[in-house]
């Protein structure tokens, strides 16, 4: 059985300070806070699967010259 390592009081204090430092975050503004939140958000893959099924039954639009200009295709 693995033996647990016991921390000294000093080590415990350092560990506690590190934990607090990691947890406390400051945002200069609501813009910054929302940008952080947006960056943490990922799109559920279910949407991709649903869209794949949905667009499979729709013919792509014929006129898309702007699109080629946009992507250089």
């Amino acid at each position, binding site marked *: 059985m693995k033996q647990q390592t016991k921390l000294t009081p000093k080590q415990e204090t350092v560990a506690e300070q590190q934990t607090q430092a990691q947890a*406390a975050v400051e945002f200069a503004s609501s813009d910054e806070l929302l940008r952080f*939140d947006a960056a943490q958000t990922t799109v559920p893959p279910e949407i991709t699967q649903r869209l794949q099924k949905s667009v499979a039954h729709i013919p792509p639009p014929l006129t898309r010259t702007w699109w080629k200009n946009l992507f250089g295709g």
Partner: protein
Amino acid sequence: MKEPVARQGVAAGPPTDWPASEFAALYDEHSRAIFYLALRFLGDPQKAEDATHDVFLKAFRRLDQFRGEASIRTWLYRIAINHCQNLCQSWHNRHVQASSDDLVLESAAAKTDSPLRVLETKELGQRIQQTLDALSDEYRLLLLLVADEELSYEEIAALVGQSSDAVRGKLHRARKAFAAHFEKTV
């Protein structure tokens, strides 16, 4: 309210086998922004998922209507905003109450210059959602749009149908209301 499924850390891959590969690229580039707007505007992960699907499906159907006068992101945002606002109107949810809340929060002595301090990022999503839910649709939308660094004030103004100056003024009040309410969610 349950926490967004989006926070589970599953990355969405581009739908590479779609018939229109350009559309896959479009989805890959903009889906996060559209999903985030829907998520925080509607306040419900499942509704946001449905809305994001519907927005991109509408975009796919209307690709030939896009003339390139605005950026593709702005065009997608316009579809998303219309879609989300229609959903909110059909729910008749909280608009009158939130508007009065805005006035209360604006008059509160919000420390807008002070940083927003967060001790637990784990609960951050819930706090942000609670705060946004307390604001009017207009303030919520402005704050979400301005958080997208790819949008200019002019583009935001065009999206909400107001002048740039009006947007700046309302954003100032919206940030103040957000800060005041965010402090209360601790």
